[in-house]
């Protein structure tokens, strides 16, 4: 495999794509939201169990590509035990990581393992695959009922990310 493809499909991403963690309906969930990418037909449901200000458990279900499945899997791991504000900060840092922007405020929890998604930045058409679980999670956290679509102009959609037409940086 070419080395730049390996930047996208890091071992950890392949592993979570094949064997997603927290891949189930969460019986005790008190927040949930559905995410949908009409361009590829991917659907996923994110479940959160929130106690007071804290996410005590997180899980997801659905069908998606390796990138979106791994992203959802690692997101649910990262969220457990985080406060709402910390979850929001992680969302912003993750978005910055893969869009190359610097909108997130300094401080808060580090991205840690989620840094493996940095290679997605070089694949503009795949950015929405990685961000869909996070937008869906945010919607669940805010208690929005509607299905989150990657193509909506809604607040929670990744509208501020580069359009898929942006040429990949590494085209020779």
């Amino acid at each position, binding site marked *: *495999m*070419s080395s*730049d*493809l390996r930047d*996208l*499909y890091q071992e950890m991403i*392949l592993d979570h*794509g*094949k064997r997603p963690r927290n891949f189930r309906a969460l019986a005790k969930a008190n927040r949930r939201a559905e995410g949908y990418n009409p*361009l*590829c*037909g*991917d*659907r996923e449901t994110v479940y959160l169990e929130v106690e007071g200000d804290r996410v005590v458990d997180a899980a997801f279900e659905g*069908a*998606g*590509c*390796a*990138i979106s*499945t791994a992203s959802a899997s690692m997101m649910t791991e990262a969220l457990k035990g985080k406060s709402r504000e910390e979850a929001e900060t992680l969302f912003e840092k993750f978005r910055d990581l893969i869009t190359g922007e610097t909108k997130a405020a300094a401080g808060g929890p580090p991205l840690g393992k989620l840094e493996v998604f940095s290679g997605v930045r070089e*694949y503009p058409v*795949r950015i929405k*695959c990685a961000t869909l679980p996070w937008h869906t999670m945010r919607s669940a956290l805010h208690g929005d009922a509607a299905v989150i679509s990657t193509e909506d102009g809604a607040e929670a959609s990744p509208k501020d990310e580069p359009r898929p037409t942006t040429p990949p940086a*590494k*085209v*020779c």
Partner: protein
Amino acid sequence: MSSVRAVRPTPSTAPPAPSFDVQRIRRDFPILSQKVHGMPLVYLDNAATTQKPISVIEAERDLYERFYANIHRGVHWLSVESTEAYERVRETVRCLLHAAEAREIVFTRGTTEAINLVAATYGRTHVGAGDEVLITALEHHSNIVPWQMLCEEKGAKLKVAPIDLRGELILEELERLLSDRTKIVAVSHVSNALGTVNPIGEIVRLAHAKGIPVLVDGAQAAPHLEVDVQALDCDFYAISGHKIYGPTGVGVLYGKAQLLDAMPPYQGGGDMISSVTFEKTTYNVLPYKFEAGTPNIAGGIGLKAAIDYVHGIGLSQIRRHEEGLLALATEKVGAISGVRLIGTAREKAAVLSFTVEGVHPHDVGTVLDRQGVAVRTGHHCAQPVMDFFKVPATARASFAFYNTPEEVEALVAGLHEVKRMFA
């Protein structure tokens, strides 16, 4: 009619074509020598859009450099030249579709607009509350949504003729669904998602037996098959320029003259009128009645060059070459363990849709792309087809006459790489 038919470039009457030399043909398409991610481009997304030969690119350039002006307007030399060139496009399209008369050829933005035109004019006039519009389970969204909108507006019902597991239309079911309330049948000639070739002649015969007109979405057929609207006896036929090696933004609606004549105009504006006063407007004759505003002149000029190019090779040669590629790809890709071919109709055109077990089509597409192989992944604007086969999406390789057996091998090698990576 016989004089019209005499100019048809049918395989039986055309002089023997020079032998098919794919490498020589490839040199006519500048983009095919492009490298992608350092790899030679293997372009297998021809059902989405086709690449352009140099003659198409040059034709548009030539227009703008030598004789461009608005058409049907001025008395000056440029306008006359442009108008004559544009009307020659209409004649070339008539020839491509084997229509009886050039006035049956209406220029549109593409297949989508052609179908919307019929839904908005013929549809609005003839479909009422409780009536039915019959489509098939193979349709592209562009041959579903305009009819859905019409049915919603009129309180009519959209009926869908089903397909079987091979992706073939179940003709008996279609016949059963033709009722006294059916006002129009709209069906694709070739399925964009699966490549199935529908038996249009038979469908038209069944519908006409009940007095129902048939619209054919020919976007995927015209680049691959010899289309004869008179032999098919269909009432409307829609194509897109960009799918047949021409520019984007230009397409064609063929309609039988007597139907077009009786239909109300689609859009109002310049060129579609004979005379205008504030009290009354008299509409222009066919086909101008349906061509409001300045059209895509350069697109039309490019389309003529594209059709001339296709005729220069010959559709029978094209068909033979593409059938070879499809057979090879079906055999080689189908032999890879874990690959499921979606759509295995007995008669198919140049499309191979498939899934790889355990790997999402988007991941297949990304890995292939890094090897220079361009395929489409997703639902191909045919979500009901995906739902029928219970897959969210497929990967789709679609071939053109400029593709080679070596490119099929590149696809196969790429898929082995996909499997290694996600094993």
